[in-house]
Every structure is written in structure tokens, then in C-alpha cells.
């Protein structure tokens, strides 16, 4: 039944590897984007904008504010906590420090040695630079305050909380996004060799051997999945090494979405191959399909930034959901929709495209 599956898959991979155009779109193009975007946006600010939510408003809290304001790396911005968190999510603040009421009481000489008074600090763990800088600064200031009150148990502590920002200047945003784009291209462009193999009668010639069509399709899918894994490793690797992106999610869930996304776009590629009679038509159709996907699916900037009339288009496009799922699972990105919805939408595209291509694909 599966005779020939692995040899044919290896032959397909070799064939792919020797096709310069395919190599360019699959590897060079996304890598170029990662590096370009990385250097354009990851220089990062030399000062970090920190929201200062003072819920106490006493001389003690004012003193603490002065201590933070004296740190040249930080620029304090006085705001309410709720508003501050909102701004941080939108990428306008790098971190938020909340001073709850009760600071003055806790620092009063002779106050009962209760548990230390905690400052709440929100940082975005996926933004390594700002997150670690702010946490270090806060730790130093708190340490200094505690030292100034030496002879007593530490009065101040830090309650550190993660908060996902949607900063544009963020490698964590575009590394999963560009991975999604690369997987999309890998699948959509599968239409071209498939149409070429039909046009050159290779599919017909294979049909004259005992190789089953199921094995033929399985081999094509397997080959694309193997390439998808390489793409993922390379793109994520560059993101980690060059731009300090860390993968915060479960690697198995990430891998699951990589596989699901690749297969959904591969099925879309097969639909294109079903409609295109020639290699040239498949080539043009694949381009026509990939460009709106690339620019209207929140790959280069969040969908919220798109004109409102275009946003329903994004909601329709499958790449929106793969990008969203990968950002959520890889770097804990802000959700466009819950992961379950991403899963369902991608599965829907996979099943529908597969059925359409199975119905309309002509082998010769």
C-alpha cells in the first residue's frame, strides 16, 4: 500500500532542493524579511516608557517615584492602573509599576514587621530587553530602599506580573507572523510543481505504475511537512539568536499549528492546481492568492491598525488565524481570537479545500 512512499518523498525533496525559485520563496524570502524587520525595528528605545500608577499619593510614594525618575533609563508617565495596562497592551508603554495604597504605613519606623509591602510590576516577557531592564531597575531601587531602612526585615518586595504588549517594534510579533507567511507560501506554491508535473505528464506516467494515488498525495504532503519543519527551525532559530525572541508556549502546540497550517495552505495550493491548466497559470494564480494573504492577514502589522473597512477581509483570510495561533502559542501574543477558533477556522479551510481539490483535480 505505501510502497514507494519514502523513495518518492526523498525524490520530491531532492527535486525541490534543486529548484532555485522554490528555494528562494521558501527560505531566502522569509529569512530576508525576518532579518530586515529585525534590524529595522529591534534597535529598541534607549529609554523605556514606564507607566506609574500611584494609588497611595503620599510623601512616601512621591519619594519612591523620585527614586525611579532618577534612573536615566526610565521615563515615567503618571497614569491610572487600568488605563496604563491598556496603553501597555497597545504598545505605548513598556512596563507599568503600580504602588498600592499602604506604602507610607508599611515604611513607618516602628511599623510591625509584617510581610513586606509589594509593588506590582507589569512587564512583557516576550520583549526581552525592556522586560529585563525594567525588572533589574525595579529590583535595584527596591533593594536600595530596603538597605536604607536596614536593621529591619525588608519592607518592600516586588510582585512581578507578565503582560503581553502589542508593540510593533517587536521581533516577537513578526517572527511567528513571518513563519506563518512562509508556511502559507510553501503550501500555496505547491500548486506550481504539481501543475508542472501534470503538464509534463509526470503524473500520468506515475499513473502507469502500481503507485497508488493515495501514496502519491501522501508523499507530496509529507515532503511539504518536512520542509515546513526546516522553515520553522530556521526562522525561529534566527529570531532567537539574532533578536532574542523566546518561545514561551508549549512546543507541541506550536508544532501542531505548524502542521495544521501547512496542510491547510497545501490544500489551498491543490485547489489552485485543480483550477490551473498549466504551470504558468498556476504560477499567476498562486501569486494572486498569496499577495492579499500576505498584506491583509496581520503579518506585518496588527489587524487593528488596518482601515476598518478592510478588517472583515482579514477575518475571512486563513492566514490571519495561523499568524494569530503562532503568535499566541510561540510568544504569548495578544489573541485576535481564542486558540480554539484558530484551530477550527484552519481545520475548516483544510477540509473544504481538500474536498474541493479532490473533486476537481484532474490527473491528466
Amino acid at each position, binding site marked *: 500500500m505505501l*510502497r*514507494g512512499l519514502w*523513495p*518518492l518523498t*526523498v*525524490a520530491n525533496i*531532492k*527535486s525541490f532542493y*534543486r*529548484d532555485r525559485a522554490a528555494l528562494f520563496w521558501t527560505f531566502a524570502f522569509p529569512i530576508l524579511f525576518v532579518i530586515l524587520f529585525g534590524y529595522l525595528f529591534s534597535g529598541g528605545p534607549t529609554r523605556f516608557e514606564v507607566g506609574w500608577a500611584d494609588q497611595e499619593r503620599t510623601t512616601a510614594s512621591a519619594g519612591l517615584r523620585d527614586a525611579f525618575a532618577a534612573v536615566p533609563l526610565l521615563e515615567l508617565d503618571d497614569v491610572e492602573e487600568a488605563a496604563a495596562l491598556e496603553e501597555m497592551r497597545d504598545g505605548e508603554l513598556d512596563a507599568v509599576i503600580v504602588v498600592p495604597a499602604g506604602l507610607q504605613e508599611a515604611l513607618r519606623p516602628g511599623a510591625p514587621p509584617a510581610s513586606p509591602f509589594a509593588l506590582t510590576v507589569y512587564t512583557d516577557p516576550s520583549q526581552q530587553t525592556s522586560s529585563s531592564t525594567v525588572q533589574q531597575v525595579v529590583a535595584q531601587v527596591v533593594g536600595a530602599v530596603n538597605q536604607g531602612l536596614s536593621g529591619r526585615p525588608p519592607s518592600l518586595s516586588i510582585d512581578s506580573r507578565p503582560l503581553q504588549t502589542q508593540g510593533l517594534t517587536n521581533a516577537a510579533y513578526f517572527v511567528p507572523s513571518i513563519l506563518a507567511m512562509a508556511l502559507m507560501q510553501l503550501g500555496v506554491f505547491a500548486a506550481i510543481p504539481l501543475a508542472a*508535473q501534470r503538464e*509534463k*505528464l*509526470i503524473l*500520468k*506516467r*506515475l*499513473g*502507469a*505504475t*502500481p*503507485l*497508488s494515488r493515495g501514496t502519491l498525495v501522501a508523499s507530496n504532503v509529507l515532503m511539504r511537512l518536512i520542509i515546513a519543519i526546516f522553515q520553522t527551525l530556521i526562522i525561529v532559530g534566527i529570531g532567537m539568536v539574532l533578536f532574542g525572541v523566546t518561545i514561551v508556549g508549549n512546543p507541541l502546540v506550536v508544532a501542531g499549528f505548524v502542521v495544521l497550517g501547512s496542510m491547510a495552505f497545501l490544500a489551498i495550493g491543490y485547489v489552485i492546481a485543480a483550477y490551473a491548466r498549466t504551470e504558468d497559470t498556476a504560477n499567476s494564480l498562486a501569486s494572486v492568492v498569496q499577495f492579499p494573504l500576505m498584506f491583509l492577514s496581520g503579518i506585518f502589522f496588527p489587524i487593528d491598525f488596518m482601515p476598518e473597512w478592510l478588517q472583515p477581509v482579514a477575518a475571512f483570510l486563513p492566514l490571519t488565524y495561523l499568524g494569530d495561533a503562532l503568535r499566541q502559542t510561540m510568544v504569548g501574543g495578544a489573541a485576535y481570537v481564542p486558540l480554539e477558533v484558530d484551530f477550527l477556522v484552519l481545520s475548516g479551510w483544510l477540509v473544504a479545500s481538500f474536498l474541493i481539490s479532490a473533486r476537481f483535480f484532474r490527473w*491528466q
Partner: protein
Amino acid sequence: MDDAKPVIVVSDLHKSYGHVKAVDGVSFEVRHGEVFGLLGPNGAGKTTTIETLEGLNKPDSGEVSVLGLDPARDATSLKERIGVQLQTAALYPNLTVIELIEVFGSFYARSRSTAELVRDFGLEERQGGQSRELSGGQRQRLSVALAMVNDPELIFLDEPTTGLDPQARRSLWDHIRDLRGEGRTILLTTHYMDEAEELCDRVAIMDHGRILEIGTVNDLVTRHFRERTVRFAHRDELPEERLARVRGVRRVARENDEVVLYTPDVPATIGELLRLSDEMGIDGLDIAVRRPTLEDVFLELTGRALRD
């Protein structure tokens, strides 16, 4: 395999594409160990017929048996035992000769050694080269080599030498004769009458989806033409009225500068012609004798030339 039983039996095969009757009631048998040729112009229905036998097409009606199997029903077990070469070489352009032979070999329950096939088809020099870099002749040889990976008892070759230069054609003919010498049965299609004459034990002449005649090349020619032609450059000393009285001559014709004598008795005609020219002191009468060819048979049957 019972040698006496036909390897292929086709009876009253019909296949239409839309309103076009590609194959319109074709019947023939192919015997064990012979090279059988389907000869006809492009669009005669040769490819449709051969692809039905290969299990690539389903017939509209008619009975087909190949190696005792029905290609439409037992396609997979049939495909294990036949070798197929399509009209176009159909090779993955970026794979090498060796890689192609190996991957095709992997589809079969049993396959021949790659090195042996590379050697048999004279591809040693290009074995590491990608198929897109091969010459037309090398591609065709590779394509036939791929048809041989499963050591088939029956081989289908669809227009094997179309587009090849004369030297490459002759080389491929040698390979096909070798396959016949190994006891394999071969069904080939061609629109070259010289190819059919060179290779085929028996020929079926096809046109417009029908078979017009079946037989050995000799049968077909003698069935339609009992006469041979004797030709030479026209001389004023030998007027046509005189030539018409030469022994054996049935008819005299002029083709440009050439005189053509139709005769069933070539030695008698030439003997008298030589004596006549001797008497008249004519030097260097350049006489050629030509047997009518399949081309003439086709012309006779259809009223048009084969290669138009």
C-alpha cells in the same frame, strides 16, 4: 504464460471525447513475443488505444484483455507486469538518471538493478546528470529504461522515436530489437512507416479511430501492390511508347525527370531495359528498383500521405 494464447485481445473498442470518436470499433490481437505496430497519422486514435490497454483510460465499450487481465478492473496487478513509455518522456527535470531509475523501481514489487539498466541503455556517461540536461535521444532511452525497471513481459511504446535525429532513432531501434530478442512482447505506435517496416512483425494501419488493415509489412504491401517500380532518368532515346512494350511493364509514368515503369516481373523488365540501352549505345542508365512501401499502402487506403 501460454505462448500460443494472445497477449493482448481487443475487440470492438470504442472511446469518445465529447463528440469526437477517438476510437471507433477497433479489434486486434497481439501474439506472444512479437513487435506489433499501430501505424497511423496523428489523431488516428493510436494513443487512446494504447492508453486503454495500459489502464490509463477507461473504454466506453468493447472487450479488452491484457495478459489475461482487464485493465479497467485489475489495473494495479496489470501495472506490475507491463512497461509503459508515454508519448512525452515525462521525467522529473531535476532528478538524475540514477535517481529516476531508483524511484521508479521503488514502485514495483520487483525491480531490476539500476546499474544494469544504465548500462543496457547506454546511459553510463550521463548517469549523474539531471534529466533536463539530457539530449533528446538520451531522454527517450531513459524513458524506455524506466519502462523496463520492473522487468516487464509486455512493453508499450508510444511514438518512441518522434523528434529524434536519425542517429538517435537507429540507436533506439537497436534497443527495441534487443528487447524483442529477450522474448518480450512489444506494442508500439508510430507515424513513421520506415519505423514500422524496420521494427514490426505485424502492423495495424489506423485512421480516424478505425483499423484499416492488419498484417505483416510484406502482406500489406503485396495485398495492395503486386507490382514494383523501376525508375531511371528520362532519355529522349527511350520514348514512352517504346518503354510500354518492354517485357512485364504494365504502365509507364513520368515523375518530373524520372520515368517510372510498373512491373510485376522486375528481372525481365530490367533485362530488356539493359539490352535496349546497350543496343542504342546509352551509357550510365541509372536504374533503381523500388518496392512499394507502407506509405504507398496508406496512400492507397486513405488517399492521403501519412505524415500530413
